[in-house]
């Protein structure tokens, strides 16, 4: 398959490139048709995108993972399977057990729990360990800032804002009504007020995220327009 494609486009790279550019440009225009309304062309382009992405991903996984990573080694050395490649039997069995989920028999689906359990266990372990060592501890260390750095007022203000904003954002999700002694009530009032300030910081962060997302989308629009004008129509040099 690769040879056929390469033989056609390898010697005629420009043709393939041109075809690719035209297809991309037309699909881009189909997507732009959504600015008028939800047209057939837009749905065609979007469905093509979804299907192509899924098909390409499936093809890559089947080739690189299932075939080259699992089946090809097993089949190439069937004679010494249990001597050299016996470890590959384990992922083969676990992967096959996942397919048993499709069988409408509860006894069969019970075996699929082995593969699912392995996936869940590995994923949970990686998530927990990564969250602790890669997120929680470093972020806590980054928040523990000195509020009195060496003679730098701007840095001090920056650290103060970080500390106040971080703690306020955490207190914004505290929904506890504290009653009792006057000290407890004062504590509750302070934390509630700090939570309100934290909500303001959260709103500012949401605004910054919105602006960045808008910039990302505009960047995609501009890039595609540049493609149409430079690569397709060659208007822009």
């Amino acid at each position, binding site marked *: 398959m690769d040879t056929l494609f390469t033989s056609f486009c390898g010697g005629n790279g420009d043709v393939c490139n041109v075809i690719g550019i035209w297809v991309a440009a037309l699909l881009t225009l189909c997507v732009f048709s959504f*600015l*008028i309304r939800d047209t057939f062309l837009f749905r065609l382009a979007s469905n093509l*995108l979804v299907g192509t*992405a899924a098909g*390409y*991903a499936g093809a*890559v*996984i089947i080739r*690189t*993972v299932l075939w*080259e*990573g699992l089946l090809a080694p097993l089949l190439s050395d069937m004679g010494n399977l249990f001597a050299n490649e016996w470890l590959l039997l384990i992922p083969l069995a676990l992967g096959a057990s996942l397919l048993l989920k499709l069988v409408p028999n509860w006894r069969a689906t019970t075996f699929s729990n082995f593969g699912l359990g392995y996936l869940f266990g*590995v*994923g949970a372990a*990686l*998530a927990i360990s*990564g*969250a602790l*060592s*890669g*997120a929680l501890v*470093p*972020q806590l*260390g*980054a928040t523990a800032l000195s509020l009195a750095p060496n003679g730098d007022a701007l840095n001090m203000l920056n650290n103060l804002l*970080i500390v106040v904003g971080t703690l306020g954002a955490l207190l914004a999700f505290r929904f506890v009504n504290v009653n009792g002694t006057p000290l407890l009530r004062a504590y509750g009032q302070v934390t509630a007020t700090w939570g309100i300030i934290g909500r303001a910081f959260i709103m500012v*962060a949401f605004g*910054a*995220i919105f602006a*960045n*997302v*808008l*910039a*990302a989308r*505009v*960047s*995609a*629009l*501009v*890039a*595609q*327009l*540049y*493609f149409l*004008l*430079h690569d397709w129509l060659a208007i*822009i040099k």
Partner: protein
Amino acid sequence: MDELAPSDHLAGETTLSPDLPNSAPTALDDEVAMARRLLGLPEFEEELAPLASRPAREDQSPIVNASPLVSPEETEFTALTASPSSNGNGSHSDRLDQAASETVPSTLDDEVAQARRLLGLPEYEQDEAALEARPPTIDSIAAAQSEPNSPSSLEESASIPAPDATAAELPILEVAASGSAQSESWDFADIAAAAVIGSAVSEISNISDNDTLPLAFSESAQVETPSSPQESESIPSQVFNGEVEPAFPKELEPGELPEWMRELTPPDADAPQAETFILASQVPELDEAEKKELPDWLRDSIPVAGAISVDAASDEFDQDEGAFDEAAVLAAVAEPEPEPQTTAALANAVAPVVESTGPLAGVSGVLPLAIAAAEPHKLVSPPLPRTDGGKVFEAVLALPVIVQPPAPKTADQPRLITANHLIYLLVLLAALLALFLPSDISGLGLEFTTSPTAIFYDHVQAAPPGSSVLLSFDYTPGQAAELDPAARVVVQDLAQRKLNVVAFSLTPGGAGIAQDVLSEAVQQNPGFAFVNLGYIPGSEAGLRQLATLWIPRDFPDANGIPWSASPLSSRVKGLDDFALVIPMTGGDEPLRWWMEQVQPLHKGAISAVITAAIEPSARNYTQSLQLAGFMRGLTGAAEYELLLNHPSQAVRTVDALSFVSLAVAAVIILGNVAFLMNRPRKKQPA
């Protein structure tokens, strides 16, 4: 107040006035007639005539017995004794007198029956359970509070009614709970007198703060209830809460008046008699010792009262300042009472009770609630008044319902150009205008010296030539429009600086993107060497394995060549052998995987190429020194090009990005201003 001995009781102290009218038409007649009308009864009939022949009783004075101050031995009050009164003027009092003098009701039932006949009510069956469930009498209270060996004969007494209950709430048929050996059937006079005295005695019960009733209460309150309603024709007395049941003195012969009644002046039959009740002030003379035993309020003359409020157990008597309100009693008297010597007088003495509570407060001659409530009467609900609005409403409801045909739906006419189209057009024009700007003025407003791109640039420039750099193309084709310019400029720089690149991808589509970018760089830089490992499965698990174990020697790359066959395999044994690690990611998750799974294990620096959408997350990692630097999408690519002094596509497109951002900001501001101007104003309060 000291407890009074039975012998210390004054005889006739709470007796009826001897001046009770007996023959002349009085207001009592009117009150009775009114009561009968209220109950829906016909006019009073002559059925009570046989009652007039009831023999008078003089031996037992219920009045005397009712009063704790009356000694059964000393008092022979028979004011209420039903001596036949033959005034014969046909008045209601005469009829009562005659009816009362007919027979002596032997039991409470007889008295009730008699009363019913007087009022013209039909007979009713006595309910034994109802009789037994009568409220307790004073005797029972006295028995409970008196000495254990008190010679009270009221063993059958029930509990005493609550002091706060009004006498009107008590059944009129209630007499003593049990009879005594001395008790006989009441006659009309005795019972009526007992009612009168009981009202006055209610004050006695209030005197004692500790609610301790005098011993005489228990001994004197011995009244026998009538055996059957048919036998008794006496109007039973009322039991006043907290008061003492009338204690019967020694038996009197029929027609015999008690001594204290004999001393009373008989009323003049022809002259209208004031309805007065003489209470303690007109009792027969007492000994000094007996007077000392009296409560203070009885020592003083009690004003004459025409009618005694039956609400003897009301709260006013329980109040600390609530001494017997003589003025109220006087005020309650509406008509002079008939002569107590006759049955009619007794009836008048009993009947004209003044209601002190409820809607009939101040009205005299009110029938006791027991009789009124016991009688079946039909309640007729008055018709609801019809208002004009109600009539109109009914008229509207009576109209036939007209079903309106559904309104024809008008098809929505789609507008050719809407506000959204205008915004789209504005954004498109802003982008096109910037793209057509001359290249010499491109890159307006870009400040790359202090941006994060400069730090990233420094890290890339710090990698020595000939070293290996690890690139991760972890973005999808949908994000390629923003990251491809950045990836190209970085790869171009690495290729120009003769750095070896090992590329891979955590997404299936990233491997193809990597191949395109690297192939383009090779065409522009022929000496550039790279290895595309392709798709690494497992997401974070694969990344963790890559960070710990690297890749197996026989791991095939995107072209199917094993890793061991690559010339870089001899230089790179693990992740630490790379001078720089640059993940290029468009989503938050791949960046997090790198920070959580790789950064804790990698000793070198990690600099990322990201989109503008995840810049806030990248700044957190930069703040915590987990990320050495980052380059943000199209803007970062333009800055990197300017740093390389080689403006290209990124610089041309960043102007369009700036123009479009300005246009979008202007639209947002104008929209908010228009919203504020057109916001509905709050209505001013009138």
